[in-house]
């Protein structure tokens, strides 16, 4: 009994609740709850704040995120507006959830490789948050490089874009090759396409990483090809403009 804490039906706590042992909430808590033990949120209880615990059992209402080391169980009548994160999550018939739900083992959260499994299983809508939580570090540099490099000097586009490309982006090729038009507009499109494809291609890259032979060999030829193709357009563009300008001047 000594380890069991109860916040009774007619009790309101404004502030943070933390500690070891288990906690049963029947009343109201306006603040964060962080326990190393289990947390039971009973019918009629209301928690406004994030709840962290080993196992969470929710039959009341929570406006905040639920994070469990082990399991989250939403009982019938539970109402959660917030994200659920836990190794195993059970949502019973009659429970209401509005938020992100993420089940994961310890390892996927730590390293990128198991995250592939999660990404593969998860529906499309869930991928972005998952990537955000897990694999952002991998995404960010890839997206950022092309965005920064081409801007100042359009002439540098082929080099700068070709640089980051080789590793993760076989699927980019079809989309990039078609628009070899004016140099300036092309660079913008390339940036966009890179940004857009950043997420997808990253997923692909991670998915592909399960078969390790893929990325390196397949990517390098593509990269060189694109570099050549993109080297192509700029030289003709400049003379063409000059000629037309000269022609106009001469004409006048």
């Amino acid at each position: 009994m000594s380890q069991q804490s109860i916040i009774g039906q007619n009790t309101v706590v404004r502030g943070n609740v933390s500690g070891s042992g288990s906690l049963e909430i029947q009343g109201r808590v306006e603040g964060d709850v962080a326990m190393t033990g289990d947390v039971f949120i009973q019918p009629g209880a209301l928690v406004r704040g994030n709840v962290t615990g080993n196992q969470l059992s929710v039959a009341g209402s929570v406006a905040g995120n639920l994070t469990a080391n082990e399991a989250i169980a939403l009982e019938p009548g539970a109402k959660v507006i917030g994200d659920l994160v836990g190794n195993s999550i059970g949502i019973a018939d009659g429970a209401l959830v509005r938020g992100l739900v993420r089940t994961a083992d310890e390892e996927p959260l730590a390293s990128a490789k198991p995250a592939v499994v999660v990404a593969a299983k998860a529906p499309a809508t869930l991928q972005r948050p998952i990537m955000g939580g897990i694999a952002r570090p991998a995404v960010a540099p890839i997206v950022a490089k092309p965005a920064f490099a081409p801007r100042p000097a359009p002439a540098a586009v082929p080099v700068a874009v070709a640089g980051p490309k080789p590793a993760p982006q076989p699927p980019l090729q079809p989309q990039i090759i078609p628009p070899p038009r004016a140099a300036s507009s092309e660079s913008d499109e390339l940036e966009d396409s890179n940004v857009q494809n950043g997420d997808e291609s990253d997923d692909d890259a991670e998915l592909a990483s399960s078969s390790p032979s893929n990325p390196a060999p397949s990517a390098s030829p593509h990269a060189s090809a694109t570099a050549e193709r993109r080297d192509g357009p700029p030289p003709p563009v400049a003379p063409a403009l000059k000629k037309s300008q000269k022609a106009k001047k001469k004409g006048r």
Partner: protein
Amino acid sequence: MAATVIGEGLTIEGEITSEDEVAILGTVRGALSSTDIVQILPGAVVQADVTAAGLSVAGQITGNVTASDRVDLQAGGRLIGDVRAARLTIADGASFKGNVDMDV
């Protein structure tokens, strides 16, 4: 047992308001008020002003205490702060430092 129990190992930083009996074995910082009985049990640390109908103290309180009915400071209990209550008992072995106002 009381309807609300703040067990040992539990820390509440903030305000507790209750209409039921409250038993504290853990730590409370902030404020604690109940319209019923509040028990500060051995091992509890309360750094808060406490308002209750009745209060029994076997743990440690730092803060002012107000009870509409009574305050019982039990052996081993430790109270630093002013007491405002209709009745006050202080058991042998309790420690207490503060003013008493029984003129409510």
